């Protein structure tokens, strides 16, 4: 399942969607709005998430298919929020379900790493003075993605 939404979500409910007796292992990645921004001395009060929805859905679908295929997953759920989010709010959830834990864990990391550099979302910090500031892409995220190139088809 793939969902782009401006509403929050409940982890237990989302787990129920992918839950099945054939799985023994689930790996979750949950990203939230963090107040502590090491690179800035500014305080933020939240974020704003912009999205090219048609494209993002197509890109997420592709990433999900790769994860399902390469790690023989039984299920993979991806939810991404859009719009205005307060500090601490959930931004993104990935759940991978497999018979084996190593597959679930690796695939989950692949999905979030891919999402960070390949899906049409843009983040802005909402500052305390009511201005918006664009968040820059991290070199580290691009470098980290390279490690998957040899692993996946």
């Amino acid at each position: 399942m793939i969902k782009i939404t401006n509403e929050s979500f409940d982890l237990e409910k989302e787990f129920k969607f992918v839950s099945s007796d054939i799985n023994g292992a689930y790996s979750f990645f949950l990203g939230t709005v963090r107040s502590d921004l090491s690179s800035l001395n500014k305080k933020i009060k939240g974020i704003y998430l912009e999205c090219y929805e048609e494209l993002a859905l197509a890109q997420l679908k592709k990433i999900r298919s790769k994860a399902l295929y390469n790690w023989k997953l039984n299920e993979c759920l991806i939810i991404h929020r859009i719009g205005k989010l307060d500090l601490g709010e959930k931004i993104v959830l990935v759940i991978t379900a497999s018979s084996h834990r190593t597959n679930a864990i690796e695939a989950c990391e692949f999905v979030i790493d891919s999402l960070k550099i390949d899906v049409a979302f843009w983040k802005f910090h909402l500052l305390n003075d009511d201005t918006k500031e664009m968040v820059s892409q991290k070199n580290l995220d691009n470098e980290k993605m390279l490690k998957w190139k040899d692993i996946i088809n």
Partner: protein
Amino acid sequence: MNITLKYFSWIRVKLKKSHDLIELNQKTNLKDLKNKLILKDPIFQEIFEDDSVKYFLNLKEIDDENHTLNNGDILAFLPPVTGG
């Protein structure tokens, strides 16, 4: 023919709009379109000089400037993404 342009992130902010509907002659290619846009608004010069900006035509990435556009095409201007 008509082409829709979609702007995201700093490009949207800079242009102060999220999209444009523009009329082009038949057989216009991406390069012609870029030149036309620069004439219309010099901000486009800055956009086109930024190597990190990607162009998606009908949801597929495009980097061939000689690609001919068609009526109804949707061309999106994408700065580096920062989701997750």
